């Protein structure tokens, strides 16, 4: 069921920090900072990951001119076991905190919960977002980077980035969160962890279709419908599903994918970018800034997540996927 926010919480600011390889992203000009060190000068990847979360939050607060003590809630997550990078960042941020896991769809599930807290009057300011760190994620889900394992062309590249939004009560001058759709866990029987885009595309399709139907909208009502990290192949599949459902392919121009565009045409990154930090970074830098500049008036952000664990795919289980969406407008 679609959630319609009567109070229209505002997306006041976004803080995005990214790693060294992400300088090659076509979106890097919109990020607040790009670091030269993948580990943020810390000893381990996980410690660097934690630091990245803290810095993204600090950027979001600084831009909005609010202090840590003004924040009522901190909602977020990452892809590492037990979400320790985010949990440890929460320890240092010292703000009431709930960790949320929707894999790479966590940025949007966090924003939905923060918006609900704002809607019911429990929160004046809340931080919500997600992050991922390439080395840490690859080691956990596939192989350690140092091992030098081969990856097929369908594989995607986990982004090192953190994106956090500051959600507050409605204010005219900021993008408003109008509605949200919480996705189901969808499983079409895909079992290849190197082909996540294909696994996630049906989840994205279901969520977008359900959102449009219940809101009584068509794709052309949107300037942009941006999915999180389907990659080039996943986006192609998603477009194919819309065409099959009777929509003409020329009507699909608002449909884009952050992961497919993230690294441009660079073949080093195979089928494009992925990771919780991919959608979080693009949504909360490029999209917000373009909305404030007036390029986009109505946007649907659809973060997609593959809900697998390293154990489930070793045991031969298929990969359930989800997609959560928020509809944002700018006057």
């Amino acid at each position: 069921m679609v959630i319609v926010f009567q109070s229209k919480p505002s997306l006041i600011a976004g803080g995005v920090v990214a790693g060294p390889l992400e300088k090659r992203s076509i979106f890097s000009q919109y990020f607040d900072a790009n670091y030269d060190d993948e580990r943020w000068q810390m000893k381990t990847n996980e410690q660097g990951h934690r630091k990245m979360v803290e810095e993204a939050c600090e950027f979001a607060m600084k831009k909005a001119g609010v202090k840590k003590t003004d924040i009522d809630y901190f909602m977020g997550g990452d892809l590492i076991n037990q979400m320790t990078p985010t949990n440890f960042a929460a320890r240092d941020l010292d703000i009431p905190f709930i960790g949320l896991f929707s894999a790479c769809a966590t940025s949007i599930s966090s924003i939905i919960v923060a918006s609900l807290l704002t809607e019911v009057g429990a929160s004046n300011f809340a931080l919500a977002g997600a992050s991922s760190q390439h080395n840490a994620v690859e080691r956990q889900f596939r192989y350690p980077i140092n091992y030098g394992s081969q990856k097929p062309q369908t594989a995607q590249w986990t982004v090192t980035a953190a994106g956090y939004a500051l959600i507050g009560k409605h204010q005219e001058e900021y993008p408003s969160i109008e509605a949200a759709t919480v996705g189901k866990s969808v499983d079409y029987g895909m079992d290849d962890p190197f082909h996540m885009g294909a696994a996630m595309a049906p989840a994205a399709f279901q969520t977008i279709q359900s959102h449009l139907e219940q809101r009584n909208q068509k794709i052309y009502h949107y300037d942009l419908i941006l999915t999180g990290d389907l990659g080039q192949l996943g986006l192609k599949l998603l477009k194919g599903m819309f065409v099959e459902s009777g929509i003409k392919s020329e009507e699909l121009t608002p449909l884009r994918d952050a992961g497919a565009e993230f690294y441009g045409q660079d073949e080093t990154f195979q089928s494009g970018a992925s990771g919780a930090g991919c959608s979080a970074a693009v949504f909360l830098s490029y999209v917000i800034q373009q909305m404030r500049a007036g390029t986009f008036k109505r946007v649907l952000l659809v973060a997609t997540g593959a809900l697998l664990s390293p154990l489930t795919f070793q045991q031969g289980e298929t990969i359930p996927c989800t997609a959560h969406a928020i509809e944002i407008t700018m006057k």
Partner: protein
Amino acid sequence: MAMTFVFAFFVGGIICAIGQLLMDYGKLTPGHTLSTLVVAGAILDGMGLYEPLINFAGAGATVPITSFGNSLTHGAIAEAERHGLVGVLTGMFEVTSSGISAAVVFGFIGALIFKPKGNVD
């Protein structure tokens, strides 16, 4: 003589291509691929097919990991003929011991000198 180089090139290449196909299309992990090739080499030698391959292609058959499986079977059979069933256990590592020891020693030296790096270290 010159033809041995050509045969080595092709036979070695074919064994490696099989490994690559197992990873790309068989969806095997690198560990599974390695084990599969070792077992394949062992079975081929059990059927008496690996020795002729070595005679034909030289290093093209001895360098790939399948040759390790061949050596395991070879040692086991040779010792079993001399000492009976116990020979199966003692024989396996008699032929392969130099290879295993070399892996340990050179692996150790390599680890002392080099540090594996990530994408952007």
